């Protein structure tokens, strides 16, 4: 296990200028327009943005789970333990997936195999990565179910996914993801399909397990409330790019990008007067099929000037551990 890193000793995953395109019949969608970020050991990094901003594509690109026929990562690097994941063979990639980097998805019903028991599916992951015997792996599957606080784990290992509730399925998914003690867990909207009391249970579980195992978590969500309660650092995505990156406290206290600001203000919040008009972000997200000149948010941005419409801003520092891709960040932060 050599620790061959270029940027700081605590960086676990280093994504550089990642670009992913989707190919339609007569069009190319630039889903990721070159994004760079790092995940540090043991931290929880939130990735927020609205539908179509590229947050799930980021996760799938890192793990190379994109549909092969229609999508391709056309540029950039994903460095993990000194290796570029994009250059590994399929076999090497399979060894990393589920072992060092694991993922949980939004819909636990569709991501579990309906024809195998929950215990079988967790044991399978353990057997693939540790060469443990069947019985050892099954015993460990039972332990994992206890770890994720499923009541009566001895019985539940023999249940099929349809026999357990949605919240329990998501717990089983987490058990499977953590079975090989990964260094990085990518959670893509893990609580979005769940009821709010169950969501609170699952969030609590993820935070507790993260603290206990030291696993870094990349938490993809559209819900700013979930970000505020679980993450230490946040990246905000818009139209396939990172528009802001900050600690969670800074992001909520001093948003530096007009999109982040608009997003935070449009959430109904009990601390503001009720029945007053919510500040809205006018307009809609641009199509990523056409090349975008200038800042992709400029058409919806109250701060936009000529330079915004002409030149694409890149991320620049506006504070310690706080960066934004906005020409007018200083004015935005003062507003």
């Amino acid at each position: 296990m050599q620790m061959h890193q270029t940027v700081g000793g605590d960086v676990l995953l280093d994504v550089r200028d990642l670009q992913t395109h989707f190919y339609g019949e007569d069009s190319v969608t630039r889903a990721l327009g070159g994004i760079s970020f790092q995940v540090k050991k043991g931290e929880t990094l939130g990735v927020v943005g609205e539908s179509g901003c590229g947050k799930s594509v980021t996760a799938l690109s890192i793990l190379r789970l994109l549909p092969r026929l229609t999508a391709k990562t056309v540029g950039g690097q994903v460095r993990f333990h000194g290796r570029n994941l994009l250059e590994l063979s399929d076999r090497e990639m399979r060894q990393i997936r589920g072992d060092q980097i694991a993922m949980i998805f939004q819909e636990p019903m569709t991501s579990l195999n309906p024809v195998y028991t929950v215990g079988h599916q967790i044991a399978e992951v353990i057997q693939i990565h540790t060469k443990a015997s069947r019985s050892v792996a099954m015993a460990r599957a039972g332990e994992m179910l206890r770890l994720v606080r499923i009541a009566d784990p001895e019985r539940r290992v023999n249940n099929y996914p349809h026999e357990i509730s949605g919240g329990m399925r998501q717990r089983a998914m987490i058990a499977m993801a953590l079975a090989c003690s990964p260094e990085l867990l990518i959670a893509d909207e893990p609580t979005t399909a769940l009821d709010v009391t169950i969501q609170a249970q699952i969030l609590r579980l993820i935070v507790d397990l993260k603290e206990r195992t030291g696993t870094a978590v990349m938490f993809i969500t559209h819900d700013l409330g979930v970000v505020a309660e679980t993450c230490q650092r946040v990246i905000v995505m818009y139209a396939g790019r990172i528009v802001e990156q900050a600690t969670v406290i800074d992001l909520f206290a001093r948003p530096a990008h007009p999109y982040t600001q608009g997003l935070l203000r449009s959430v109904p919040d009990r601390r503001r007067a009720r029945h007053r008009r919510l500040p809205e972000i006018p307009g809609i997200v641009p199509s990523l099929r056409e090349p975008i000149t200038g800042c992709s948010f400029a058409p919806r941005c109250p701060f936009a000037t000529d330079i915004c419409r002409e030149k694409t801003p890149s991320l620049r520092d506006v504070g310690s551990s706080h960066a934004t891709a906005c020409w007018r960040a200083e004015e935005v932060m003062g507003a």
Partner: protein
Amino acid sequence: MSGPLLKVENLTKHYPLGSGIFKKTIPVIRAVEDVSFSVEAGETLCIVGESGCGKSTVARLLMRLVEPTGGRVLIDGTDIAGLKKDALHAWRRRMQMVFQDPYSSLNPRLTAGQIITEPVENFERLGRRQRQALAADLLRNVGMSPEMMHRLPSELSGGQRQRVGIARALALRPSLIIADEAVSALDVSVQAQILNLLLDLQQQMGISFVFISHDLGVVEYIGRRVAVMYLGRIVELAQCEALFAKPVHPYTEALIAAAPVPDPTRARLATPVEGEVPSPINPPTGCAFHPRCPLAVERCRIDVPPLVPMADGRVVACHVRAPAGDARHLAPVTGDHPLYPVAMSDTLSIRASRVHR
């Protein structure tokens, strides 16, 4: 105007499981159990609860898209459950529905203009010019440009589709709109646009809303009164501010505590309520929340708690927090009770319906 616009009395819906020709008793899903509330003209009542609590079934019962097992739905004093087909058709003009999914609730083969004028054409023939004028009007009402009437749903964004869904609901100038998770599928920035639109329309046209949602942030923003449902029953019904400031029912409390707060300095990740919602096929005896309730006592396992009026006008169904017959909770008797106008089954009912505003 006298009396509320919409009055729901002891509404109940059981769905039988299977036909059971040879069985003596057929198991039923108790989707909605003894639900009563009222909505005044121009106000918004929110119904909040988690999946399976019966909130969408209530919406369908209000529209009489499904037939109730028991209870009544009164619009301006007329029981719509008793109406024959033609009369019901006419009453439907007064209430319209907005659905959750702006993708599946619009006919993909009709243009936006055809979709929003269709409700009117159910009742009267429109000439081509009339139809265009109406469509343009309706689109302007929901903040869209009249040129959009020629677009197909597939050519509209999610937010625009939801606006078309709202325009369609407005077409017949209804007194009541039932919005079932109308903003849940939308991104927050678009959600804000649609919530603003609904508030504007209510102010301009005096429309009443029954707004069904699982999102407490949205409910708190848009509601005047809130009914919290759990497993088919209303467990608490209160003024919006009062409910969020001080929830009384332990379930309401758990629900509010569980909602993530978009403020990292206040983030607390409170110890969440344990367990999951039980099956409505075989609900727990007594209070349905008792298996998850930290306050549960013996009585909660046996008796279903009645809705008891509290001093601030709310009603709560909880043996511990709102014990029935405890006079301390009851305020002086004057006038009609705004929150719970319907007589309840026990002796409290008379007093319940006459509690001070």
